[in-house]
């Protein structure tokens, strides 16, 4: 039984990854090879022409790449910091009205961007009019809604809630303050959840397209995802190289953090 499942899971995972392999293999093909009808898997030779063209003619690609790193990195860090504090308040400290806040937070995650786009736009405009803060057309227009998205709070709250109370009570008796309990006791136990948050938030914001098209007018300020869309529509012969480089950061983050998804939780002697 175990062997059958093992084979099944391995085969299934290969099936899932086929389009990604296809992208990588196609990134070594010449425009002539790409133009052939039907699926083309194996390049005739490993041709680096797409990457070369990307570096020489589309050097802007790498500037967009850095913009995306900046935007996505800020959002991930912001969500972790805000998320840990808020989740601790919602799951462990509780306060008058915490359930109402929780329901509102869940509600706002569930609304698709088409719904929040207009409200966000109006706020940014108001900021500019009254406080003279320029947010529209800068990266801030993507970073702010990303950082204050309640996604991370809800995720961490779900994982934090049934950490044993005794652990926290014991630390309190030892005289630890809340910040200390949070960093020394709660965080180490939440590693798998924090890793899940990092990878999921990274993916969502790395792939951002529609919000960027609304909030940012200057083409140079767009994130990489939008630029890649333009390559897809305009310079398809280098698309696969662009897409391959686009996938790499997420793969690296995943490989680096994967170990947290195989460590079990052992709470020594608390039960």
């Amino acid at each position, binding site marked *: 039984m175990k062997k059958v499942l*093992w084979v099944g*899971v391995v085969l*299934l*995972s290969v099936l*899932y*990854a086929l*389009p990604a392999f*296809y*992208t990588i293999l196609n990134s070594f093909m010449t425009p002539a090879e790409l133009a052939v009808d*039907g699926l*083309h898997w194996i390049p005739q030779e490993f041709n680096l022409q797409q990457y070369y063209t990307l570096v020489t003619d589309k050097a802007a690609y790498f500037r967009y790449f850095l913009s995306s790193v900046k935007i996505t990195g800020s959002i991930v860090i912001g969500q972790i910091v805000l998320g840990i504090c*808020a989740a*601790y*308040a919602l799951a462990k*400290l*509780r*306060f008058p009205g*915490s*359930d109402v*806040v929780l329901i*509102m937070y*869940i509600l706002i*995650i*569930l*609304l*698709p961007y*088409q*719904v929040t786009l*207009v*409200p*966000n736009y*109006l*706020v940014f405009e108001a900021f500019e009019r009254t406080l003279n803060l320029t947010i529209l057309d800068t990266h801030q227009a993507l970073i702010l809604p990303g*950082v*204050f998205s*309640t996604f991370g*709070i809800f*995720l961490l709250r*779900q*994982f934090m*809630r*049934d950490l044993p109370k005794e652990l926290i009570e014991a630390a309190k008796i030892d005289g630890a303050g*809340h910040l200390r309990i949070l960093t020394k006791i709660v965080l180490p136990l939440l590693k798998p959840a924090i890793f899940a948050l990092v990878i999921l938030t990274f993916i969502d914001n790395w*792939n951002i*397209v*529609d919000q960027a098209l609304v909030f940012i007018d200057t083409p140079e300020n767009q994130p990489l*995802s939008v630029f*890649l*869309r333009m390559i*897809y529509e305009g310079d398809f012969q280098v698309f696969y190289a662009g*897409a391959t480089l686009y*996938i790499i950061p997420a*793969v690296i983050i995943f*490989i680096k953090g*994967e170990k947290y998804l195989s460590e*079990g*939780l*052992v*709470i020594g002697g608390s*039960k």
Partner: protein
Amino acid sequence: MKKTKEKAGLIGIWFILPSFLGFLVLFLIPYLIGIKLSFQNSSLDPTLVGFRNYILLFQNDAFQLAVKNTLFFMGIAIPIILVISFLLALILYEIPTPGFVKLFIILPMFIPSGTVAGFFNDLFGNGVDNLLNSDKAMWVLIVLFIWRNTGYNLILYLAGLLRIDKSIIESSEIDGVNYWQKVQHIYMPLCTPTTVFVTVLSIINSFKVFKDIYILQGPYPNPRIYLLQHFMTNKFQSLQYTELTSAAYVFSIGVLVVVYLLYLVDRNYAKKVGERR
């Protein structure tokens, strides 16, 4: 006792405050102000017209179609993906598999919509339009959704399973329960908070499948796969903000019902676990 509880409550407010201020300014206040827009004649003409926009919305054929398709899609795709990702997570939790398995299953969420479209076009050639215009189009959408998002849910279920205290599992093994009983009485109930979260997430992700379809078929696809996202995006692009906002609020009320149900499931879980401790 009461006094310490109150004090803890006040500390809680400090911890939630930074996120709540951002939430207030960026989402809540503009969202509430937006309600007024949905009762206006148009976004430029602030004459109030009562429920006219809502009535027109419900009479709109495109809206009715979009609601029907979206509910059908979510009703089928979400239960399937919950089961698949939970089972896969269980298998990966129990059986040592090569390291690449998780990565491979998660890869579909990393790749851009353009790649999906390019692969689809090469796979089916000119047949891609035939397929998406056939009556099987909805199933294509469902498969596409499951393929893209299994990894997402799998990560969460794995994190959820890993959070279960090993001593509970060990003591159940000493009691001699079989594997299915273990799944039924330990893994499934203790994964409830994860399931609530994964359901919420799958709803969000079910909106995103629209991106892949949009790049293949544009703003007016086969009516069988015309979703609420198409409706709202088209309203946005044609600057019909009053229609967009009234659709958004109707949508929000639907979502609120779902959220409340999930909240009840979640609270029920808290009670049970609370009793055990």
